[in-house]
């Protein structure tokens, strides 16, 4: 139920290397990855979230990729590219790429893919600014946009832009989308249970020594860790901090700890009285002890957040100080807003670990006379409540992409991700300006201004960035770790003793 959204990230990435492999190293034939979130489809254009993206990256490739160390866009299926104009991007494809069905990758496949994307649930919004995609020749594609969009290449590293095979989808309209160019070829997909893959030996890039890969759905996180300790699995994603300890303690395992980009926050419904009053929100901001929340909810792991912006996202700025913990100031603001004796507040919270956060908020806000009730709902209900705008406040999380324009969905008044129903014309104006701005400094200035406004109006109080934990077999390597969906498991291997 985590809403980490599409994500794409940067500098925190490291590649895990087990003891350097030698000539006669033996590799485990099948590697098993446990995940706590379900995979419901293998169609890259239908869903875009962390759990799915990790799988999509195994079977499919995007045109360009992100170098995690430098933060630069690097070639993938496209060897090189060129902006012909602010609205025209031309890409040259590699000519040694094959799909799992044996077909060679051609420009026509790219055209087909982006055409098909217009109907995909997750992709339709992504290509809504595409005017045209044409195959200039067999290995050259040209994308025409309706207006300048600086973040296009950045975005195109997200799996939702992965290239599909036209032939495969014509042959099999039902399952053809599983055919990609990635190193892993789908073997079996049992929804709600597991996805298994065979290595695709005609892969254009470097092959992993592993023959088979399985991504298994294990809903209960403590069980997932135990199965790692048992050797049933070689890698566990998304551990809780309390489980991470056991991985750390175990000398056969190693723990990967990564600063996440998902910002956990406490948001208000800024369009509904009384919380449309900035003063009230500021008062609350002064009464919260974020450190305590990190301590209790995440056992101390996590990075304090001061701005509602991904911490590896373009434009991130934390130069201004945070609201100080100051109960007197909080009470003063309450009084100024007309509530000297405090008021009631309902926090809607999805079931799960965020409930602890809500409990802490409840205790902290009681200090300034705000009487909190906690409304625990499942995530479907939360979404519909926040869409309808019947809520007062809520606790949730949001994962950001590296592209600066990703902030649009958090602040655009029409976006469903803007659960605060926050609307500020200047913010929208700045977002529009920035995305068409090729001058980096000017762009950064625009984004800084947005964050200053948001910091002052505080429709959401950012709490912290969640630390991500992965547990692995000590001899596991080949994974490019990354804060969110850019973690690339396709090279995964385990050395057998």
């Amino acid at each position, binding site marked *: 139920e985590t809403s980490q959204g599409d994500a794409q990230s940067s500098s925190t990435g490291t590649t895990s290397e087990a003891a350097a492999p030698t000539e006669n190293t033996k590799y485990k034939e099948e590697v098993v990855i446990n995940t706590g979130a379900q995979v419901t489809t293998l169609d890259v254009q239908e869903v875009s979230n962390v759990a799915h993206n990790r799988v999509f990256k195994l079977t499919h490739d995007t045109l360009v990729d992100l170098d995690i160390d430098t933060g630069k866009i690097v070639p993938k299926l496209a060897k090189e590219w060129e902006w012909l104009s602010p609205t025209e991007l031309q890409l040259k494809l590699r000519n040694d790429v094959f799909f799992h069905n044996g077909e060679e990758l051609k420009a026509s496949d790219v055209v087909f893919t982006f055409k098909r994307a217009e109907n995909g649930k997750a992709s339709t919004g992504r290509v809504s600014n595409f005017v045209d995609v044409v195959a200039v020749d067999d290995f050259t594609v040209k994308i025409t946009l309706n207006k300048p969009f600086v973040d296009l290449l950045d975005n195109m590293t997200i799996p939702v832009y992965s290239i599909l095979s036209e032939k495969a989808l014509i042959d099999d309209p039902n399952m053809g989308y599983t055919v990609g160019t990635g190193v892993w070829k789908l073997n079996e997909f049992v929804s709600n249970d597991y996805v298994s893959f065979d290595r695709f030996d005609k892969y254009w890039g470097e092959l992993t020594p592993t023959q088979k890969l399985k991504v298994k759905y294990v809903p209960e996180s403590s069980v997932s860790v135990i199965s790692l300790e048992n050797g049933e699995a070689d890698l566990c994603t998304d551990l*809780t901090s309390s489980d991470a300890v056991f991985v750390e303690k175990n000398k056969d395992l190693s723990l990967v700890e990564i600063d996440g980009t998902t910002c956990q926050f406490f948001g208000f419904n800024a369009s509904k009285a009384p919380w449309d009053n900035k003063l009230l929100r500021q008062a609350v901001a002064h009464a919260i002890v974020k450190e305590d929340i990190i301590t*209790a909810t995440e056992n101390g792991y996590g990075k304090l957040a001061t701005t509602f912006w991904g911490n590896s996202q373009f434009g991130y700025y934390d130069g201004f100080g945070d609201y100080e913990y100051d109960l007197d100031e909080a009470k003063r603001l309450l009084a100024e807003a007309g509530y000297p004796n405090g008021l009631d507040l309902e926090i809607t919270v999805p079931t*799960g670990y965020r409930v*602890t956060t*809500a409990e802490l908020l409840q205790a902290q806000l009681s200090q300034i006379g705000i009487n909190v009730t906690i409304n*625990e*709902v499942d995530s479907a*209900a939360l979404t519909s409540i926040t869409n309808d705008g019947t809520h007062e406040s809520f606790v949730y999380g949001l994962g950001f992409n590296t592209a600066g324009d990703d902030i649009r969905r958090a602040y655009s008044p029409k976006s469903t991700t803007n659960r605060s129903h926050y609307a500020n014309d200047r913010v929208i104006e700045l977002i529009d300006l920035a995305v068409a701005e090729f001058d980096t400094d000017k762009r950064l200035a625009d984004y800084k201004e947005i964050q200053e406004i948001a910091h002052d109006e505080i429709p959401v109080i950012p709490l912290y960035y969640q630390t991500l934990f992965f547990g692995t077999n000590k001899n596991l390597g080949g994974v490019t770790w990354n804060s969110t969906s850019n973690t690339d498991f396709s090279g995964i291997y385990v050395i057998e003793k």
Partner: protein
Amino acid sequence: MDNHRSKHKSIRTEKETSRQHRNELWYRFKKNKGAMLGLFIIVFLVLVALSADFLLDYKTDVIGQNLKERLQSPSLTHLFGTDELGRDLFFRVIYGARFSISIGVISVSIGLITGTFFGAIAGYFGGYIEEVIMRITDIMSAIPSILLAIAIVTALGASTLNLMIAVGVASIPEFVRITRASVLMVRNQEFIEAARALGVKEWKIIISHVLPNALAPIIVQTTLTTGSSIISASGLSFLGLGVPAPAPEWGSLLSAGRKFIRGYAYLTLFPGMAIMFTVLAFNLMGDGLRDVLDPKLKQ
């Protein structure tokens, strides 16, 4: 034609010192050690639940947080240790008795009252009324009780009352069945016919003759269901549909503690034991009552 057996009884129980029926039941109940233990635990828990408000201050003792003392192992200051928000688990378990016992009792009452009502009607009147009631019961039991509970809790919102309703509603079919079966047995006894011959009205026959005699299996079912309701409620907590935080209902405590089950096992141990012993107590008492109330097992 088999009146042989009843004759035996007549001779044996013919006492010049006529012992009262109820005293006799109590006497037999007392002899059942398990049942007495169950009763003892239940009485104790009810007392704890009733006095929890006098013993503890909800705001400070039960939900008051103290992050400095979070996750402390059991000690003299914190008998059961503290949870991740530094709340004293002992106090929470004690206070939780209120929630768990009342969930058990109230949800069972829902099942009991509704189920007995419809079961008695179905059993006594028979015919197409029975057919309709029983088919609806079939439908209700074809919907997994947990799904029913999920639907109710999600539809009405998570609250203690809704949880009780959810668990209670799920137990209705069983009560309908048991009541009906039991009423069917009583319905054909001659004393019902005798009452009818005397001109006693039907509804009065149901209330004063049928139900009292059909009660034994219902009482047993009630105690047993009270136990299983507490378990069901804890299961719903596991699925995130339990009593909303920060109320210390045992199921919620247990389910909240499960992410610490390895490092801080006591967080699940104590609520788990509390549930286990309570349910055990209700079951022991139910079994004891069954032995006492089942006339066939008298000898």
